[in-house]
């Protein structure tokens, strides 16, 4: 077939059109990008990352070290291996020089994640995995069988062995069809298990629509992360073939022997016309014979072994080769791949060294033996042991309820792999208590035994400059020798020195080879040297898959109160407080934030405003010891509070620093409702539970969160009483009937409510609490009069700051005591103990230079200090008396070191004060009232005057309206 020169005779299928490196090409359904490129005779697929050498397809699976491509269409995706990209119509790809490019636009595809659980997870649907899953699933266990390929069969796909009298590929498909029909069995194709963690938590990535290209259904998740919790895990992960380090072993046309066999058998692709085979073991013979039968001329087989052994002789490999005219050269090595840009021949030499000859070939197959895929076993904490027969590390002991099976466990023949898999399935069932089911092992009629391999890591040479060890990282034997020559003796150190094993493939083909070369260089046994550590992910995973649906609005929950829609409809801007969206301010048309906040502040100071205060944390504290409990947690006395009254309180950590503040409302002798700051609601409840459960289990107290049971409207301002009176005609609102810091149950706007007379602004104010179902109704009723100005958190912040009320977390940072805040009065001198009390006996908490909360007035009343600005004293050397004001305003800091005296914690424009002001934590601040300090802002030094932190209505005259 002239159109498809490298396609095996008689292979047909649906034609797919694709473009690679600007060339329009055709492939067949079932192809990977790699097989389609080989079928088109494309030998050079990529170039190497450091040296820029041409590189071709080396393998046939995820272990591919060379053929790294970028998908351009339908959506850019970097650093994929051509061997795992399924071909689809319209695919556009380019080869990469070891680095890809991220898309410059958002990925329109959907990615998601699923949690699932099973009795037995089997990883790998090769012969051992199918056998294991079959035994477990047919006994009624919940089984998940995950396999990275689009088609089950694993190693059977690329070979010609038969199972139960059928071609292996057909047997695998039939078995999978039967298992899929079982109710509690799930077969996940195109699903790579990337991580195996403690307690058999296993993470896999399923590629669901990647292979469909532009035909992918838009609503269907493209990739899915499976988070699997398995009672037992069977790792039937097979093996990867490795190569040998010889000169030019990276040239396009050099290929793993097993991969070439797969291309011929599974894809009907001829990876070349005339091949030389270089092997250390028997498996390459099967490849040579299959290639010969497919029409590829095998020029020679160079077998490292001088006498390959009786099993080799028994199967008559030499005769089988001779029948096909293949010359077998035992005791020979390939010393070099020859060619400019791609393989045109191989240099073969007897191991004795004399009689080198060059054989023309466009394909050079290499088999340096097979390495069990022990990545997952090792990730999960399993130890590896060296298997002399394989020349590789195989799974040893593990603390997990997991085991390896089949070739992954070091079992070499198909017959034994099937039996081992079935046995692993049976062992899993027994461990899970399913009894001892009968196990039928699929039959393999005829199969060669493996003669012992000879473990050869490198072909010795005087120049190791092109003896590649890690193809993707461009690491050669020369560099490994430089590492060992520098004194490195650990493979972990050599890995970091040379970067071998650190590419996208994480050394799947090169890891053991690197160890082997290091062992060779040091003259030690590779068994004692070990391998580098295996870490998740087994294959690269896109960040899009890991992010899944946790993007955009679903990235983090947005919490909203019952009145939220009203705020949105009224054009409020929102402030994030923890996960809450709180109305920040409500700009009117044409207003900026400053104007809106000044208007809202003035409304509260002069008329009446309302704020949604629903987000405050609320906890019901119930029990005969509730008062004692709160006495121990708050710094002040709560047990003496009368039913019907309210008290402000501060909670500290054992170090005496402020943790939270709020109010306690005494509902009954044995019942309080305490409020917390919005951000600390959960932390305070945890704090209470921790003390109750670990320190004071004798206290009869139980706590229940009611934060969202209640919606709260704060009504503040001199006219708030008349608004409340109108809404609650049955409530006596006079100052004597309803004094400050008391609460009343009443009907407000026809809704059952609890009204608390508390104020966070210094004005006459109420907080009206209703069931959150009625929150919107209450809010609308409050607003219906048209007299009440809605205000947001910014106005609330300004109003409280004018009064010097601190906000925990804004004016405090975990290093601030109540005394630092000027609140000695809140720290009880009478109580025997409370959390934090003993810290006030420490010298440090009474240092005179502790940072105190003070007010600051910028000398220019229009200048707004940035929050966080540092404060320094007069920028001249030596102490400065508060009254010794320099006449000229300094413009630069003194020479360093300049001691920061503190920093601005809150800063606002005040309508009531007619100017800007700030709160700050300043060293010895209360002793500095009247002093001039400076805030370096940009290149400027802003002079400010220290004042009391209470700037507005210090007498508290406005509280009662």
């Amino acid at each position, binding site marked *: 077939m002239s159109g498809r020169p490298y396609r095996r005779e008689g292979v047909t299928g649906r034609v797919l059109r694709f473009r690679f490196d600007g060339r329009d090409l055709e492939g067949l359904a079932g192809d990977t990008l790699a097989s389609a490129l080989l079928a088109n005779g494309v030998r050079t697929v990529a170039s190497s990352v450091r040296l820029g050498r041409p590189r071709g397809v080396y393998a046939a699976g995820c272990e591919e070290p060379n053929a790294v491509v970028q998908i351009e269409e339908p959506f850019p995706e970097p650093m994929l291996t051509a061997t795992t990209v399924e071909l689809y119509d319209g695919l556009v790809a380019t080869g990469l020089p070891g680095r890809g490019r991220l898309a410059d636009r958002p990925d329109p595809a*959907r990615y*998601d*994640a*699923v*949690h*699932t*659980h099973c009795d037995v997870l089997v990883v790998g649907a090769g012969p051992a995995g199918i056998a294991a899953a079959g035994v477990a699933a047919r006994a009624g266990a*919940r089984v998940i069988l995950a396999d990275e390929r689009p088609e089950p069969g694993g190693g059977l796909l690329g070979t010609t062995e038969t199972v139960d009298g059928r071609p292996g590929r057909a047997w695998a498909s039939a078995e999978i069809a039967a298992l899929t029909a079982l109710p509690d069995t799930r077969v996940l194709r195109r699903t790579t298990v990337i991580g195996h963690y403690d307690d058999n938590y296993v993470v896999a990535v399923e590629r669901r629509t990647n292979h469909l290209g532009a035909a992918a259904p838009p*609503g*269907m*998740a493209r990739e899915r992360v499976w*988070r699997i*919790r398995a009672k037992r895990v069977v790792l039937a992960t097979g093996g990867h073939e490795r190569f040998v380090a010889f000169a030019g072993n990276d040239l396009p046309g050099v290929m793993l022997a097993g991969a070439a066999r797969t291309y011929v058998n599974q894809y009907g692709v001829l990876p070349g016309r005339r091949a030389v085979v270089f092997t250390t073991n028997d498996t390459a013979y099967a490849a040579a014979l299959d290639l010969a039968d497919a029409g590829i001329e095998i020029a020679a087989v160079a077998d490292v072994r001088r006498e390959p052994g009786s099993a080799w002789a028994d199967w008559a490999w030499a005769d089988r080769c001779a029948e096909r005219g293949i010359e077998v050269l035992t005791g020979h090595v390939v010393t070099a791949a020859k060619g400019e840009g791609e393989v045109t021949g191989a240099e073969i030499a007897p191991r004795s060294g004399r009689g080198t000859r060059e054989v023309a070939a466009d394909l050079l197959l290499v088999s340096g033996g097979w390495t069990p895929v022990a990545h997952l076993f090792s990730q999960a904490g399993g130890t590896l042991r060296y298997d002399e027969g394989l020349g590789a590390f195989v799974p040893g002991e593990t603390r997990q309820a997991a085991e390896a099976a089949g070739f992954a466990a070091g079992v070499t023949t198909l017959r034994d792999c099937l039996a081992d898999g079935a046995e692993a399935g049976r062992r899993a069932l027994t461990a899970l208590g399913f009894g001892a089911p009968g196990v039928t092992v699929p039959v393999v009629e005829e199969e060669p035994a493996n003669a012992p391999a000879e473990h050869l890591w490198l072909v010795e040479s005087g120049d190791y400059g092109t003896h590649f060890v890690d193809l993707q990282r461009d690491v050669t034997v020369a560099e490994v020798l430089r590492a060992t020559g520098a004194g490195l003796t650990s493979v972990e150190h050599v890995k970091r020195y040379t970067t071998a094993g650190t590419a996208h493939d994480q050394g799947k083909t090169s890891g053991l080879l690197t160890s082997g070369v290091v062992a060779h260089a040091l003259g030690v046994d590779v068994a004692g040297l070990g391998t580098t550590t295996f870490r998740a992910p087994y294959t690269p995973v896109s960040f899009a898959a890991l992010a899944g*649906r*946790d993007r955009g*609005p*679903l990235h*983090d*929950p*947005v*919490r*909203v*109160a*019952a009145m939220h*829609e*009203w705020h949105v*409809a*009224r*054009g409020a801007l929102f402030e994030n407080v923890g996960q*809450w969206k709180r109305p920040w301010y409500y700009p009117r*048309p044409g207003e900026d934030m400053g104007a809106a906040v000044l208007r809202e502040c003035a409304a509260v100071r002069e008329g009446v405003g309302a704020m949604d205060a629903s*987000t405050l944390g609320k906890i*019901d504290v*119930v*029990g*005969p010891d509730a008062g004692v409990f709160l006495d121990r947690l708050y710094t002040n006395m709560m047990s003496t509070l009368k039913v019907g009254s309210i008290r402000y309180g501060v909670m500290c950590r054992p170090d005496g620093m402020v943790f939270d503040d709020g109010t306690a409302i005494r509902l009954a002798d044995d019942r309080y409702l305490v409020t917390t700051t919005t951000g600390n609601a959960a932390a305070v409840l945890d704090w209470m539970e921790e003390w109750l459960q670990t320190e004071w289990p004798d206290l*009869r107290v*139980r706590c*229940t*969160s*009611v*934060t*969202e*049971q*209640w919606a709260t409207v704060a009504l503040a301002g001199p006219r708030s009483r008349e608004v409340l009176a109108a809404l609650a005609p049955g409530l006596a609102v006079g100052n004597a009937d309803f004094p400050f810091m008391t609460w009343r149950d009443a009907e407000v706007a026809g809704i059952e409510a609890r009204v608390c007379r508390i104020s966070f602004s210094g004005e006459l104010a109420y907080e009206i609490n209703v*069931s*959150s*179902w*009625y*929150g*919107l*109704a209450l809010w*609308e*009723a409050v607003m219906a009069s048209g007299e009440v100005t809605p205000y947001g958190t910014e106005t609330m912040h300004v109003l409280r700051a004018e009064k010097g009320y601190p906000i925990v977390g804004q004016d405090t940072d975990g290093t601030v005591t109540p005394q630092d805040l000027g609140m000695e009065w809140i720290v009880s001198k009478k109580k025997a103990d409370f959390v934090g009390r003993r810290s006030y006996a420490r010298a440090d908490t009474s240092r005179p230079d502790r940072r105190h909360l003070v007010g600051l007035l910028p000398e220019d009343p229009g200048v707004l200090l940035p929050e966080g600005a540092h404060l320094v004293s007069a920028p001249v050397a030596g102490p400065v008396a508060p009254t010794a004001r320099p006449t000229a305003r300094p413009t630069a800091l003194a020479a360093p070191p300049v001691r920061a005296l503190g920093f601005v914690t809150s800063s606002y424009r005040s309508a009531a004060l007619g100017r800007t002001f700030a709160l700050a934590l300043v060293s010895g601040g209360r002793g500095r009232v009247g002093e001039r300090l400076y805030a370096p802002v940009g290149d400027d030094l802003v002079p400010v005057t220290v004042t009391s932190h209470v700037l507005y209505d210090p007498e508290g005259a406005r509280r009662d309206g």
Partner: protein
Amino acid sequence: MTAESVAGSVAEFAIGRRSPAAAYAARFAAASAGGAIRLAEIPFLTHLNVRADPASPAAERIGAALGVPLPVEPGVVTEGGGLSVLWLGPDEWLVVGPDGAARELTERIRDAAAGEHVSVVDVSAQRTTLVVAGERARDVLAHGCALDLHPREFGPGRCAQTLLARTGVVLVAVEDGFHVLVRSSFAAYAAEWLLDASVEYRG
């Protein structure tokens, strides 16, 4: 948004009570049209948080008064007489009853406690109840719930306090699916998440 449209949308707000996921009724119904998945809110159920010593005579009397024993086995729901009692912790239960029953049930439980240390708190508006039902209900929840929801492990009569995506929920297995009890402030997030997670299962 113009001033007129602001006024218009404000005027649409109903006076009276409103459940946390009320705004999602139409989208829930649309998502449920295919039959494989059913999303809905059951608003205004009575929820009472009860905390008591499980071994106390009071706990026994409360069970008797409710006609439903307080379950002592973790993650179990007891049901009867239109009430269900969810095990939330070794000394904590959620009594779920019909709309409007909070006052009467609270009194019944307090009377049964007869002075012993028992905490009864009306938390009816603290959470709302979302229904995730239909043959694909498990698949939808599996996108955000790490628990094994297989009927063998979590069949009807089981409950758990767990995470659904990024919000804490009380999950209850019922005959045809699940009830997701979610905090009111998280209800919109949970509703959006469920609508998103159900995209592939709407059949």
